[in-house]
């Protein structure tokens, strides 16, 4: 008899092989630590503002969510400073926080029993731009040999695994859904017998090179008021704002976590991923099927989902499509829908990882953080948006949604 991966993972098995999250490391525009970030989203404190990392004057988009300046030498080993882009430095910081939060002594574990898979969508663009400028202006002998890997999507997985001596299976998942896909892949590692797998994603592309690449999407908001620029599901939706950061999540076998006395935030209960039909097709986008796959995989009926963390594109037609998928599965105004990313901007692959972290924090603290700035929601979306401050409620199951170009991912997380 054969079973699909989803059937094998569907929760009918005993504790062994079930994946829980035991450590969270957040780094975000409105919080350098998990606690800072959680306090910020609960109070609707935004990290969006005018770009300072470079002068945005000549570009149509002037706002972003920047991680606050920090003393890199206080957080990143000296030998790694010359060879790392901001994206990798933030990942190193977030990983330290996640490992500390999990209370894991990685060095005391067999190194081949710890896997790592991270999401990344742009690599180390600021580093790349600096070295390419040297190439053009000063010549090839001025280009750092470290560029050979510092730019690459897989660099965070590589540097984190080297730094922490992880010799288990490893990988990288690209695209804007990568942060969620990586958590799902870590769950597969655990199902295959690994006690611990590091997952999550950090992205950063706040440099002119990253900016001009992203501007070509035509989906960024050119509004210059940080409180009016990124308004998903609002009549005034004008596009999204970009940010940097994300979250690293320690995924662990439920039995392993229990035996060492760890306190899980929640379980990775279900996951689904789909492609959209080709552009121009009149077929339905794939998001609804991704949601249904994730719920089926989790064995959780729609009525048991307590909150949806929306992808929240901030682009009218994409918001309509997401609202349609949510109401098709849950019914009109049947489940609270929130988008704390309105306080950070969209963090590329880091965004869905941060949303998963936020969902787990909601479970632990019994409160759903709001989306901010949205004042005129589109009534025909028929969504119960969490707008006016945090909503205190038991969160037993949360659904996290992520979209990339043509990609849809959905994850169900359940309280321990």
């Amino acid at each position: 008899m054969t079973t699909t991966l989803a059937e094998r993972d569907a929760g009918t098995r005993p504790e062994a092989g079930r994946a829980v999250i035991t450590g969270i490391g957040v780094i975000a525009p409105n919080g350098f630590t998990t606690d800072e970030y959680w306090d910020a989203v609960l109070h609707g404190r935004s990290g969006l503002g005018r770009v300072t990392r470079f002068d945005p004057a000549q570009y149509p988009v002037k706002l972003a969510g920047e991680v606050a300046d920090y003393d890199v030498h206080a957080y990143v080993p000296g030998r790694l400073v010359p060879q790392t882009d901001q994206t990798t430095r933030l990942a190193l910081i977030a990983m330290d926080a996640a490992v500390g939060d999990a209370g894991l002594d990685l060095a005391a574990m067999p190194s081949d029993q710890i896997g790592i898979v991270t999401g990344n969508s742009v690599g180390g663009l600021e580093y790349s731009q600096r070295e390419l400028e040297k190439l053009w202006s000063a010549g090839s002998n001025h280009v750092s040999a470290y560029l050979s890997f510092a730019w690459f999507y897989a660099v965070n997985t590589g540097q984190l695994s080297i730094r922490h001596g992880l010799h288990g299976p490893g990988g990288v998942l690209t695209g804007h859904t990568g942060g969620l896909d990586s958590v799902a892949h870590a769950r597969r590692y655990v199902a295959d017998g690994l006690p611990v797998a590091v997952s999550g994603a950090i992205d950063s592309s706040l440099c002119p090179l990253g900016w001009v690449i992203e501007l070509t999407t035509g989906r960024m908001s050119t509004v210059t008021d940080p409180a009016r620029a990124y308004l998903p599901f609002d009549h005034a939706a004008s596009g999204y704002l970009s940010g940097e950061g994300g979250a690293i999540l320690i995924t662990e076998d439920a039995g392993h976590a229990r035996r060492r006395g760890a306190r899980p935030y929640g379980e990775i209960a279900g996951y689904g991923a789909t492609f959209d039909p080709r552009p121009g097709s009149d077929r339905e986008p794939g998001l609804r099927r991704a949601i249904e796959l994730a719920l089926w995989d989790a064995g959780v009926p729609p009525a048991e989902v307590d909150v949806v963390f929306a992808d929240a594109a901030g682009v009218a037609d994409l918001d309509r499509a997401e609202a349609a998928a949510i109401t098709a599965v849950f019914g009109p105004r049947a489940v609270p829908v929130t988008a704390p990313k309105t306080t950070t901007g969209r963090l590329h692959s880091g965004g869905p990882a941060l949303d998963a972290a936020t969902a787990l924090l909601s479970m632990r603290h019994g409160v759903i953080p709001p989306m901010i700035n949205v004042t005129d929601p589109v009534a025909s979306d028929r969504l119960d948006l969490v707008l006016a401050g945090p909503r205190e409620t038991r969160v037993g199951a949360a659904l996290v949604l992520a979209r990339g170009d043509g990609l849809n991912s959905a994850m169900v997380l359940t309280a321990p």
Partner: protein
Amino acid sequence: MAMFTQADLVGYMRRAAGEDESISLDGDIAEVTFADLGYDSLAVMEIASLAERELGVRLPEETMAGVETPQQFVDLVNEQLPASV
């Protein structure tokens, strides 16, 4: 031109490849291998590249492959520097 010294090299090491907090570069490191000082082959390549640009010497990869210690690095650079005037 002055001699290239170990102190000069340590400055280049710090600039090009950073410094491992757990290993001091300030003591007598002349005969300690770069590997033991925390510098892998890529790091040594970065340091050699910086020295080439700043000093106008040629430190090709084939030659650098045999350089394992700061003393060897310093000697190789000094062989190429013009004699003191």
